[in-house]
């Protein structure tokens, strides 16, 4: 018979192996789903996972696009992961992303149409500050009134969306195009444009920022006292408190870092690939980043790989729709499977399956 046995320690091997296994299982289950839809599964999987990188027709265009799509995911997820490690759950990165974008764009629109080298750096500071500020609401409510940061940060996403709509329709609306919501196109305002740093590579300041954030987060978590406190608070909260770690301080720091990084991601998006403040600006990066953080095992290096993988499924998913007429919903199911399999597999990180002979008395 089959028996489950709790491991004394979580298995290191399965922690690392599970994400890879989850990807493999997703390919198999996804392939079966595509076959049931009457599409050739091999072609579908190839279109989603390989063609964006290796295809001669698309590769030179989609490789840079992969960076553009993955950079905000990685930037947000790195911040979220620090909090998640300490059991501080910022679910509202989407809202901080929106507010960061509004702060950044606000600075740009205030200076329009002046030139000036200082405008873009100011936008970066404003974007990070906006995200930080929005994350401080759940942080302060938690430390002062012991509210649940999951609920508060999540509900603030909807508030941020309303503010975004109001801005696109009112204060930030482009006065030159009558009647339509949406701000000026920042891609056409040189001092504010987050352009590609090297043409054709997809590398803009957001990609650079994501890289810096990954390095800093890695150094902090492995070398710095704060990283140690974060880990301790997550694994042994009582011990952490006896060890002098202030839970309130940790809440403020973790939400602040993740908010500022999400705000930065929003700012780099609105001044570059997104281009405009518009009602539909938020496209779910803040939520997808949660998947990225877990798929990457809350580890900065893992998050880079997970972010690239999720970015790949987006771009490949579009190719799959275009070339094979896969339904858009099938692509979303496919992305959902990835998280589902990972969570299911994580079971064996903590438990082992034993086959024993005969019935036990």
């Amino acid at each position, binding site marked *: 018979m089959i028996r489950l046995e709790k491991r004394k320690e979580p298995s290191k091997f399965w922690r690392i192996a599970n994400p890879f296994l989850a990807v493999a299982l997703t390919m198999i289950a996804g392939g079966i789903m595509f076959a049931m839809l009457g599409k050739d599964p091999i072609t579908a999987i190839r279109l989603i996972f390989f063609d964006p990188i290796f295809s001669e027709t698309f590769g030179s265009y989609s490789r840079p696009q992969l960076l553009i799509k993955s950079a905000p995911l990685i930037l947000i997820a790195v911040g979220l992961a620090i909090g998640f490690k300490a059991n501080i759950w910022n679910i509202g990165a989407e809202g901080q992303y929106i507010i960061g974008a509004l702060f950044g764009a606000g600075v740009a629109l205030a200076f329009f149409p002046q030139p000036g080298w200082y405008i873009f750096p100011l936008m970066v500071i404003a974007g990070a500050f906006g995200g930080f500020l929005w994350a401080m609401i759940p942080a302060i409510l938690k430390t002062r009134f012991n509210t649940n940061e999951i609920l508060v940060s999540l509900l603030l996403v909807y508030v941020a969306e309303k503010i975004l709509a109001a801005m696109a329709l009112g204060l930030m609306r482009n006065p030159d195009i009558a009647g339509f919501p949406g701000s000026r196109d920042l891609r056409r305002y040189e001092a504010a444009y987050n352009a590609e740093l090297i043409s054709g590579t997809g590398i803009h300041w957001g990609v650079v920022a994501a890289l810096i954030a990954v390095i800093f987060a890695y150094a902090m978590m492995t070398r710095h006292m704060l990283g140690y406190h974060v880990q301790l608070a997550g694994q042994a909260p009582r011990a952490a408190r006896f060890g002098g770690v202030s839970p309130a301080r940790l809440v403020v720091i973790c939400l602040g870092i993740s908010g500022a990084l999400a705000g930065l991601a929003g700012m780099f998006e609105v001044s570059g690939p997104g*281009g405009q403040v518009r009602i539909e600006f938020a*496209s779910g990066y803040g939520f997808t980043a949660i998947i990225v953080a877990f798929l990457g095992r809350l580890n900065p290096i893992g998050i880079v790989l997970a972010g690239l993988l999720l970015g790949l499924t987006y771009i490949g998913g579009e190719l799959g729709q*275009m070339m094979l007429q896969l339904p*858009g919903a099938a692509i979303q199911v496919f992305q959902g499977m990835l998280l589902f399999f990972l969570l299911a597999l994580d079971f064996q990180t903590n438990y082992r399956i034993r086959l024993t002979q005969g019935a036990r008395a």
Partner: protein
Amino acid sequence: MKKLLATAALSMALSAPVLADTTKVGFIYIGPVGDHGWTYTHDQARLAVEAEFGDAVETSYVENVAYGADAERVMTQMALSGTDLIFATSFGYGPDVNTVATRFPNVAFEHATGYIQESPNVGLYNARFYEGRAVIGHIAGKMTETNKVGYIASFPIPEVIMGINSAYLHAKAVNPDVEFNVVWVYSWYDPAQEAAAAEALIEQGADIIMQHTDSTAPLTVAQDAGIYAFGQASDMSAFAPQAHLTGILDVWAPYYIERVRAVKEGTWEAGDVWHGIVDGMVGFAPMSDLIPEDVRAEAEGMIAAIAAGEYHPFTGPINKQDGTPWLAEGETAPDGDLLTMDFYVEGITADIPN
């Protein structure tokens, strides 16, 4: 040198796309093809293109494409895969269409309800839906008993505001006591929100619902509440036969077939058209028996008059909401005014959100 390249690109763009055996046509959609509204009608037209040309055409589409970077990427990938003609079927794709079009001067772009034409290979097309709104406004004005009409609106853009004004003017013309309540859902397709909006409007006393959103949810809510409603974009009568009076149909197929043929024959040129009932781009779902016979006859009469060019739904005297005159007696609205409309007409009590 740069100038030379630009000139070369321009002349390439002006020369008609190359005649090929199989023409590849791509479509990008803002919603899902199963919405039974806006996107569904575009996809029906895509299927009509396939039926018309058979093997001589190859179509592809991507649904749920967000404005901005995603739209730009999808259109670029379509262009890279050898697509000859791309239909971008939502107004917000404007900047993205023009960015990609500049990069691919040999690909023809058709942008629905667009307003930006910065590249010589970007054509714009739109339908005069306000003509249809006038007809359903008339029916609503005649049929409401509570004198309250509920209007589910998507985004406060000229297209939607124009529709509200047109429907209101024609309801008011036959029923001076009529009131319009407008709820903005800030989405083109969100069944849950649309249903909630319909419920709120019914609670406020509306006994007829109009929608400028794409799901069938408001119709089913109306049927459950025992009141009437109008469909949107496609014939939605099957979803709520006891509530569905008629609906404005988006008929894109004839235009799409004509444009694909132009590309095949090498005669495609960027245009800017605004087609109405007379061109067949605006149609009507069958008028339900729920509409009294005389009202049905009046509605048919109005459709015929608009099609014949005898009647323009925006004919003066019309004042703006604040009482300032807009159109003088007998004056008809210039297209430019309509396409940038950001005001309600006199009599509507709500405010346009901003």
